[in-house]
């Protein structure tokens, strides 16, 4: 499909056939043409030309920036459509499809008839095609790109003879090698036939031999079919635009029920989903939700969306709604304990609700870590990822709140100070525990946090503070590192 981006814009309603039209992209530090329609080609514009040059040659040229992701999605959609011809198909490069039609052609009345049907049906979809049919993947690719007509069929066993007149570019190997080959006067594939493969390998490396062998079928080059993915999505178009919240939520209910049915069929559980709303004025609104645990439950999905439905502006009406699973995981139904089942469900729903508004990185749980540094004996982990219960050991030697060393004002010195001011309050030590020396992480080198001594100071005022200082530092600088309960 040599003009896939242009064809795609044409399908979207741009008048690409009525004017000079090109799709541009930024390449090699310039905006260049990448794909042109036939009028633009006829007046001499070529892909790779800079936009400025093209404009100078044809001021009436209309250009649109390339949308690679949409092109890719379109190509993938076409690949899925090709399943009607063969189960063995894959997208190739940016604009090609590879179909392994072994054994399928006779169902359509032979290769020529099949190619004609394929070309005709794609033309109905406003997609221009060049089709090549051959024994090997490389030869078919060469036939499609460099064949004389729109459809080139190389009969079985004819590959070698048919390829002889094809340009050397049909090797589809490294551009530098192609350039070198052309410089040496090897302009056609046939020019390579008399050469010894050992000479070629010595001059250009083993890579060229591989592509040469793949082209002629002496090395295997199978089509690896694109994995079929279950479509976990549903869409609903309305005869008249809708706008009432009740209508939208009813539509959402039905969509969620369909998606859940598909999830059950494929044994998947939904983790996050997107609701796309297509308004009558061609605007699109996307709403996304996440869930704490994979689910196949319609109610749970709808309830998460319900919180966001109010904010949707229906404008002059909604034409179509689509609910698609963004993330789905294999779903294993687990027998829940009777006592906890409802409670766990409620908790999951709470986590999902909080996560959808604040972000799932703001709904956390503690997780223990192995470390001697008090700061590092735990870590915060997203609640949606944590499934196991951890074993926690209570430690009375650790403060309830840890601070990043808040300096104190010393009234009566000592080790630790007998009386001091912290946060504008005076404390007098009544009893001390310590010191507890906590070293740095030696594997991080001497630059990491230095060795510190810690004291628990029970003050007469009641507060129990965790004072720290560096033993090697003179005079000692005292800091409050935490507060005990």
């Amino acid at each position, binding site marked *: 499909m040599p003009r896939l981006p242009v064809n795609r814009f044409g399908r979207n309603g741009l008048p690409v056939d009525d004017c000079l039209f090109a799709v541009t992209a930024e390449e090699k530090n310039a905006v260049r043409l990448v794909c042109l329609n036939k009028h633009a080609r006829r007046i001499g514009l070529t892909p790779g030309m800079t936009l400025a040059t093209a404009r100078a040659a044809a001021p009436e040229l209309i250009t649109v920036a390339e949308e690679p992701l949409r092109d890719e999605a379109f190509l993938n959609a076409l690949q899925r459509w090709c399943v009607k011809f063969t189960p063995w198909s894959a997208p190739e490069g940016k604009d090609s499809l590879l179909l392994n039609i072994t054994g399928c052609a006779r169902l359509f009345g032979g290769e020529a008839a099949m190619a004609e049907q394929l070309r005709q049906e794609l033309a109905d979809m406003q997609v221009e095609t060049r089709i090549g049919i051959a024994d090997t993947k490389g030869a078919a690719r060469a036939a499609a790109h460099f064949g004389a007509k729109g459809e080139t069929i190389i009969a079985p066993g004819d590959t070698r003879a048919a390829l002889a007149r094809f340009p050397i570019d049909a090797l589809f190997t490294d551009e530098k090698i192609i350039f070198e080959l052309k410089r040496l006067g090897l302009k056609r594939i046939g020019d390579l036939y008399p050469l010894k493969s050992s000479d070629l390998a010595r001059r250009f490396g083993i890579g060229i031999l591989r592509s040469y062998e793949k082209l002629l079928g002496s090395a295997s080059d199978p089509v690896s079919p694109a994995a079929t993915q279950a479509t976990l999505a549903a869409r609903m178009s309305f005869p008249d635009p809708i706008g009432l919240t009740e209508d939208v939520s009813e539509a959402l209910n039905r969509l969620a029920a369909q998606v859940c049915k598909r999830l059950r069929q494929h044994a998947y559980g939904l983790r996050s989903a997107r609701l796309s709303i297509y308004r009558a004025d061609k605007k699109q609104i996307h709403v996304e939700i996440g869930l704490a645990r994979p689910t196949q439950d319609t109610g749970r999905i709808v309830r998460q969306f319900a919180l966001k439905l109010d904010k949707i502006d229906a404008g002059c009406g909604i034409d179509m709604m689509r609910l698609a699973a963004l993330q789905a995981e294999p779903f294993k139904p687990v027998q829940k304990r009777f006592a906890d089942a409802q*409670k766990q469900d*409620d*908790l999951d*729903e*709470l*986590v999902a*609700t*909080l996560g959808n*508004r*604040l972000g799932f990185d*703001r*709904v*956390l*749980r*503690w997780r*223990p870590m192995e470390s001697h540094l*008090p700061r590092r*004996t*735990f870590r*915060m982990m997203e*609640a949606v990822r944590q499934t196991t*219960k*951890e074993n*926690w*050991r*209570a*430690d*009375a030697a*650790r*403060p*309830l*709140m*840890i*601070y990043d060393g808040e300096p104190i004002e010393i009234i009566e010195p000592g080790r630790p100070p007998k009386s001091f001011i912290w946060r504008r309050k005076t404390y007098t030590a*009544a009893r001390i*525990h310590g010191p507890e020396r906590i070293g740095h992480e030696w594997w991080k080198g001497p630059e990491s946090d230095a060795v510190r001594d810690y004291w628990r100071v*029970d*003050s*007469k*005022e*009641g*507060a*129990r503070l965790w004072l720290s200082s560096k033993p090697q530092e003179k005079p000692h600088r005292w800091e409050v590192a*935490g*507060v*005990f*309960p």
Partner: protein
Amino acid sequence: MPLDEPAAPCSYCLGVNKTGTYDLPALSPGRVHEASGPGASAFVFLMARKGDAMLCGPPHWLSALHPQSVARFCDPNAVLHVPCPLAADVLWAAETGLRSGAVSTVIAVMEKSPGLTNFRRLQLAAQAGKSLGLIIVSQPAHSTAAETRWLCHPVYTDQDEEIRIHASVYKNKKGIVGSWILNVSGETNTLHMDAAPAGEPVWPERIAG
């Protein structure tokens, strides 16, 4: 405040139990209560020791907590953290948590007491979810819609392993007010707490002064 001081009958106290002492007012579930003072965090974890808890508040406050110390009062596995940089999000998270009823206790950490309207929203949410709401505030307001208001100070004790908190109830909508000394010993599963009356309620400085 020394413990051996005789428990003077408090003029505010309305109920006397059979032994002639005053019981610590229980925190009624389905309502929101407010605690302030330096001992508030320990007191709140003590009260949240049953069932799951949700903790929402400023990120720096939540990240300063040490789970190994929290483990003395309640199970750290049962604590869900919701750090919210915006005060409005703290309110929203607390309300959502209370209304869902999925956790037994919702602890919200705030700089100032929420206004009367917001507080009333929280009360309604707590009522709907039948969970206990606890708010830790650093600057208690003059009047709030809290069910009870507590002022908590740590108290010096000779016992190393014991935690002593002077808890003062200076507002109680449906019960007695007064001060109590809470003695807490043991750990999570063997936690033992007894409360001794300690006279009249103490008001936070901001309100009293």
